[in-house]
């Protein structure tokens, strides 16, 4: 059985957010809720999502540094 450490939750939550936001972006694009072709480059749905993952990553890196002390 996988032994969970308290801080493992952080990674799982991060991954959950990562994939949930991916799914959300995909659905928004697929359903045409926001028409990406009409948006400017930076606002483009997927580019925003890619940038968002970098932000999420930095947060995880920072949390890892702060929380794990061994």
């Amino acid at each position, binding site marked *: *059985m*996988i032994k969970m450490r308290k*801080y*493992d939750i*952080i*990674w799982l939550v*991060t*991954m959950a957010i*990562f994939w949930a936001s991916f799914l959300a972006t995909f659905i928004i*694009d697929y359903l045409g809720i926001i028409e*990406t072709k009409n948006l400017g*480059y930076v606002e*483009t749905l*997927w*580019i925003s999502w*890619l*940038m968002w*993952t*970098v932000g*999420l*990553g*930095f947060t*995880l*890196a*920072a949390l*890892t*540094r702060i929380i*794990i002390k*061994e």
Partner: protein
Amino acid sequence: MSKPKPWHAMETEEVLKELNVNREGLTVEEASKRLVKYGYNELKEKKRRTALQLFLGEFKDVFILLLVAATILSVIIGYYDLMRGQATSFLDAYTDAITIGLIVVLVAIAGFVQEYRAEKALEALKRLAAPKARVLRDGKEMIIPAKDVVPGDILLVEAGDTIPADARLIEAIELKADEAVLTGESTPVKKGVAPVNEEAPVTDRKNMLFMSTHAVYGRGKAVVVSTGMNTEFGRIAELMQMAEEEETPLQKKLDRFAKQIAYIVLALCAIIFVLEVFAEGFVVKAFIDSFMSSIALAISVVPEGLPAIVTISLALGAREFARRNALIRKLSSAESLGATTVICSDKTGTLTRGEMTVRRIYNGGKLIEVTGVGYEPKGEFYLSAQPINPQEDKDLSLLLTVGALCSNAALKNENGVWRVLGDPTEGALVAAAAKAGLEKDKLEKIYPRIWEGVFTSERKRMSTVHLAANGERLAFVKGAPEIILERCTHILENGEEKKLSKAKREEILEVNEKLAGDALRVLGMAYRKLPSTIKELDEDVVENDLVFLGLEGMIDPPREEAVEAYKKCEEAGIKVVMITGDHKLTAVAVAKEIGIMKEDSLVLTGAELDKMNDEEFERIAEDVAVYARMSPEHKLRIVKALKKKGHIVAMTGDGINDAPAVKSADVGIAMGISGTDVTREASDMVLTDDNFATIVKAVEEGRVIYDNIRKYARFLIACNFDEVLVIGTFALLAGLAGAGGEILFPLPLLPAMLLWINLVTDGAPAVSLALDPPDEDVMKRPPRKPDEGILHGMGAFIITSFVLQSTGTLLLFILNYYVFPTHPWGWPNGPINEEARLLTLNEARTTAFIQATMFELFVVWNCRSEKRSVWRMGRKAFSNKWFVIAEIISIVPTLALPYIPITASMFHLVPLSLADLVQVIAVASWGLFFVLPEYLMGRKIWRWK
């Protein structure tokens, strides 16, 4: 070549005359002249492979051959295109061929460099492990490299020595030699000096010693008659490789692992090939294109470099070992070292310095203290805290004289440091006598030695017979006190030989216990004036009816560094067991001082062990910390019992009888200074400083090497499989779409790109991982289990990396080809504009290619520790400068490829805009952000085999 002289049929003097040497040996000057004349005493090595042969050898590899086939196919396609007018220029036609060809050369060069380095490292290893020889030159005993031995050199041979050249004996005392390497006869041959028949076969030449055979008993002097290729061994034997280049268990395991993956990947590639052909239609070009993709994919994914990197890591590690005073003789042992759970160490010389100093003397009922350190012949004698002059005490002088003369040790002053030539215990006796002004070389002139009964650990005693000036023969005996006492009938007190009463015996044994209880090694001394009725000198006759002289108690304190090293072992979950021939009390005292002996630890003596059967012993084997009074034969039982309990056992040994135990241990460790050649040859590792701390350092280094191999394996496996998914998905979709499928679903990565990613960019960082510094906890965690797979605990890491890398590559390709095409080409509804489609496709492929490469170069940062991601490594992240350099030389060319027109056209890449580049790097950075060992390593998802 002229017929060799029948040295064995000649008298010794005749041999010496023929070789123009006397019994004092050659002069140093003459020896160097002869070295020029006869050359080094070496066997000619089988021809080493030249650099060119090594390079061409690379092309025997099946994967390289496949690449060569792919290159040839590309040439054919290029020619076909040029003829049909489909290619506009020579470069246009042959771009693929040139690219793949260049990659083949690059890969072959990389493989060649790796092999060349491994070969060089092994060569250096062989030089380091070169044997030594003891010779007389200028009348002095010298230890020289065996290769410098020349005809005419006088060899000094003792039990355990390997004979460096063919030599004719001029003196032999109970000398027996094991000539199995030469004759296949395993029973040792008794040697003598008498000439034998000229026609005698090698086996019957009892007065000759042959190169590479071993002296197993006694000692002797011999004059070298032939060296190098002129020896019997040189004539008939193959080259003896000192460092064996066998495949290690890990290499074998990885080889098998790589093959298993290869089968799976080849099957997948075959499927992809079929799907591709379906999509492109059944034309020759479709077959060739699909074949190229499949080959490139197979080559990229199969971790064929994995077994090779193990050799490099081990060979590089071996150099590191040598720097730390441990010579690795078998590369595979570096692996076992890292998994060692028990170190069985000799006490003397390993856990202690092995520099014995006589501290107390019991003589004529008096207990005398001796001062001084080590072998320096400087010290005072005290009786009840009052200094005394030992020369005024005849009993004490005789005791010290017996100690000095009944020994084969000599003291030597090397640049102000006193060292012992021979056994340290004997060295202490010689030093003690010298402190009383009784110098051994002077004593030897007064009492020349005429016979010796050699010391063996079974007999536990040694005797010599000397000729006194008055013609009397004096037998001097020393050995374990209880053994000596058993053979004594009298005792010398105040110059008088008195009958040894039972009470006196008990008193002596009591003193012996007391001295031993203070961690002193005690030797008993006795002498005897041999009656003229004794004609034939033999141990049973000489060592009887002795007169007891007294006891000499000496100490050999634990090394400071051994105490430190032991603490490290405790933290690393490694059990240390002390094995010694010493008294139980001595052993326990030293063991307690080091820390080996705990309250609940057991002490076992040789006699107690003898009474146990194997089952009884195995039950307690794990609880025993100290084995006292052990003979070398016991060591084998200890190794076997511990191994049966599932331990990985490292066992040290020096004496010739230790060889079986050293051989049967998982890691046999021989002593470089005190060890015999036989033990060294049976060993996996030789300590050049005989120090316990060095073993612990070697274990640490073994763990580091294994860790680094694991880092590489993790990186390789985590990053090699995404291409299968990416290519496989598109091949499947294209196949399902049928004819024209390759337009709707083109391959996101081209063969040349695949090869670049997995062969060019991977290489440098992966190799530099072998030089990575150790994790801080390398000696703070328990030993790994021996049956643990190399990928143990990496499942979660590998899967996460695989999923993120594949997603990233697919996502970027999809976004750039379908969602935001820079040149709208008609997807999904319109008529297809082929020119726009190709432009868009090249851009999409460029982003996919850069992402796949950069992801690997990022994720490798997180492959460098089992527990820490790059975010928590701090400055240590940059401590391996080779790694940093490797990253730079991989990242820079990869990013430059699309911007250099010629490489861009070779790889079908287009320059990316800054915005495109930013999104690619963003995706690739997932490897840095989300593939973190803190969360992903050590998870038991499933068992890797």
